[in-house]
């Protein structure tokens, strides 16, 4: 007895260790994830592993307690005629889980605005087994959350408790923290508007990052590791038991935790439909088999037929030969063993050595009795025991023993449907700090500056100067970078060179963005399909073909980066994106004094002014967190009228409430 207990202990300990390893793996994966889907999957595995560990540890605890209890000598009065009979175990399967949602009809039909999405999955817990379903992304276009795969628990007793828990995690794009490095992420959170930044900071779990693994030490004190990344919250739960088992679909009530304020909230209807089936072993396995002599009552008293009988399910199958059982030949006859069957051992027959067993059934009003006899008394005893056990099982499993319920085996997992790549800037912005981009970029820009000098002598505007003139908010990030350098290197500007490296070094990440902007310009030399998000900058020209020699590995990132920047700007985050990293304001105020000087060329003025206006809009977005970039740009300086007009035009053009029309 002790041996088996120790075996079970070590078994559970092994399982705990295994789960701890799995959990460590999931934590590492979570930390390394760049895609939101992967992060969610990893978080789901993490949740499952943690729950499993909890369950195993409580099991261990229970076993230890039971051990302690057993060692206490029992009082005689406690020892009653204990019925040692245990019901047989069985398989319990839950499939076709469907949880209806209750969206407000305005949300569902009008389909306006951004989709609020949540990632959900179910944890199913029965006895010592915990399974999780696949993860489903839910938004308001869905009416139900469906988990199709059947989950099968083997080894469940009739008194099973199946806990179903629905976990959800919101899928907002701004809150992804996957791949952005900490420094950038914290700058992002501080540079967004106050309310958005607060939310972001709250969503980002700034835990210690590495899980505490406590494998060999006392398992009961295992702390839950806190990791960065998406976190699932319990949204609803319910418990199913034997009374809910049925061969068809049934609706069960859910207990919902959480309210509308939570980020992970989904409007659940409050119920859950599923098919809960159970196959007790007495229905599917052969409980007893052996040779018997059967005589039908009312027949010839001497006509004993020798058969090989198998007790399974609701019948006693009698075959001529033992081999017939395996080869699926129809039994010679079948005696029903169900709840209405009466079995009794008849009195000792003086003629035979063993007792007879009489099985009587009601077949449509008629009572038919079969008499069985075995070869020895032990056999009779064993058969009676088997029948009693069978009846006991049927009484415990109740409705499951009427008929064998069909349980489908889960089909081999289909690969998850490839969701269209949607995401924000922050998903794909993996900045590898090992790359020394700054030197490459400064080389490129130095070459450009030379070209610019030549061009300005010719009097034509370099095409990308228009970046500064009109595409103000887009290039806000770049302007800040470009203009100091521009003014530093071009002959028409009064600014000295030293400033550019300084401002450059201050924001190396911004340098990346600048280079991306410059690289995009020449990459739109072909018309690609809309979903590649290629974004054309105005008038690519030979001036920029210089950059075709740039490292090609920057290109893919460039395209998505730029496209995402613009898409996000379109969504109204434009101004906030101008400053993905926040250089100290002092460096930006420096260009301001420039504006007071008489501009050498109108272009120069526009350059500096655009820089300073981006400053002011930058500061305005920081302090007020509003979306429109042109809120306070009139404040800091006086401008010549053409610039004011262009800026006003810009304001009108960028206000998303308008639907502009242009005459061409």
């Amino acid at each position, binding site marked *: 007895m002790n041996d088996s207990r120790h075996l079970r202990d070590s078994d559970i300990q092994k399982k705990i260790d295994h789960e701890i390893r799995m959990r460590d793996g999931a934590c590492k994966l979570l930390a390394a994830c760049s895609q939101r889907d992967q992060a969610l999957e990893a978080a789901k595995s993490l949740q499952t592993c943690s729950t499993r560990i909890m369950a195993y540890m409580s099991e261990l605890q229970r076993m230890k307690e039971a051990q302690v209890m057993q060692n206490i000598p029992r009082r005689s009065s406690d020892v009653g005629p204990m019925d040692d009979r245990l019901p047989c175990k069985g398989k319990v399967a839950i499939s076709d889980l469907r949880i209806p949602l209750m969206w407000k009809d305005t949300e569902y039909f009008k*389909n*306006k605005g951004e989709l609020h999405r949540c990632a959900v999955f179910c944890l199913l817990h029965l006895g010592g087994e915990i399974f999780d379903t696949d993860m489903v992304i839910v938004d308001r276009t869905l009416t139900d959350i469906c988990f199709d795969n059947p989950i099968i628990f083997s080894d469940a007793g009739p008194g099973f408790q199946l806990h179903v828990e629905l976990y959800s995690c919101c899928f907002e794009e701004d809150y992804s923290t996957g791949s952005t490095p900490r420094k950038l992420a914290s700058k992002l959170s501080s540079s967004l508007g106050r309310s958005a930044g607060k939310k972001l900071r709250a969503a980002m779990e700034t835990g210690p990052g590495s899980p505490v693994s406590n494998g060999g030490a006392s398992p009961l004190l295992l702390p839950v590791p806190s990791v960065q990344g998406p976190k699932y919250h319990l949204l609803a739960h319910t418990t199913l038991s034997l009374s809910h088992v049925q061969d068809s679909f049934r609706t069960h009530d859910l207990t919902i935790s959480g309210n509308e304020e939570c980020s992970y909230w989904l409007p659940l209807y409050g119920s859950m439909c599923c098919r809960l089936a159970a196959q007790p072993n007495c229905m599917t396995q052969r409980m007893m088999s052996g040779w018997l002599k059967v005589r039908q009552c009312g027949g010839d008293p001497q006509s004993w037929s020798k058969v090989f009988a198998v007790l399974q399910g609701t019948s006693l199958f009698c075959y001529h030969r033992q081999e017939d059982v395996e080869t699926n030949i129809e039994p010679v006859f079948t005696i029903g063993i169900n709840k209405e069957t009466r079995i009794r051992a008849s009195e000792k027959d003086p003629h035979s050595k063993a007792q007879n067993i009489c099985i009587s059934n009601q077949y449509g009003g008629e009572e038919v009795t079969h008499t069985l006899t075995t070869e020895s008394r032990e056999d009779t005893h064993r058969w009676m025991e088997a029948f009693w056990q069978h009846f006991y099982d049927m009484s415990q499993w109740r409705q499951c023993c009427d008929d064998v319920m069909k349980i489908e085996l889960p089909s081999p997992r289909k690969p998850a449907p490839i*969701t*269209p*790549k*949607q995401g924000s800037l922050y998903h794909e912005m993996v900045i590898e700090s090992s790359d020394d981009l700054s030197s490459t970029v400064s080389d490129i820009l130095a070459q450009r500056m030379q070209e610019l000098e030549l061009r300005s002598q010719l009097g034509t505007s370099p095409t990308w100067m228009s970046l500064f003139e*009109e*595409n103000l908010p887009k290039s806000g990030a770049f302007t800040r970078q470009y203009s100091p350098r521009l003014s530093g290197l071009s002959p028409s500007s009064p600014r000295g060179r030293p400033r550019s490296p300084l401002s450059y070094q201050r924001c190396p990440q911004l340098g990346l963005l600048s280079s991306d902007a410059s690289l995009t310009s020449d990459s739109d030399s*072909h*018309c*690609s*399909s*809309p*979903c590649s*998000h*290629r*974004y*054309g900058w*105005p*008038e690519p020209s030979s001036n920029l073909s210089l950059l075709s020699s740039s490292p090609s590995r920057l290109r893919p990132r460039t395209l998505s980066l730029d496209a995402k920047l*613009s*898409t996000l*700007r*379109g969504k109204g985050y434009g101004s906030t994106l101008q400053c993905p990293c926040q250089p100290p304001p002092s460096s930006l105020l420096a260009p301001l004094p420039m504006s007071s000087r008489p501009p050498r060329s109108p272009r120069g003025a526009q350059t500096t002014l655009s820089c300073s206006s981006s400053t002011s809009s930058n500061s305005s977005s920081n302090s007020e967190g509003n979306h429109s970039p042109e809120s306070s740009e009139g404040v800091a300086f006086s401008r010549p009228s053409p610039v004011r007009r262009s800026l006003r035009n810009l304001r009108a*053009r*960028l206000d*998303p*409430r*308008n*639907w*502009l*029309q*242009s*005459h*061409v």
Partner: protein
Amino acid sequence: MSFVPGQPVTAVVERIEIQKLSQGPNLVLGFCIGGGIDQDPGQNPFSDDKADKGIYVTRVSPGGPADVAGLKIGDKIMQVNGWDMTVVTHDQARKKLTKKNEHVVRLLVTRKTLEEAVKQSMSRPGPS
């Protein structure tokens, strides 16, 4: 003409070639556009799918180059001289149409009647 993100857009298009008209220092096409990914698509009176952020023709000056070439009000512009117009901002679209060194713009436009015409011709048993 709604699109599913991640899937290629297919549409029945018509090629329209517009010769720009010189009016003083400017080159004029003679129509107005609306839309763009930075605009509010719900206010587009011409689109079927109110989430469509494409560029639509909102006015055609009668007798102007666009009118002569066959551009109709309500057309959605898919391409201009090979440049994609389905995922561009309003300003970019305008710029692609108003390049100073180009005197001809070749547009690919689509409209509902085109799709219907194709469907009808396919369902009707052809004379061949």
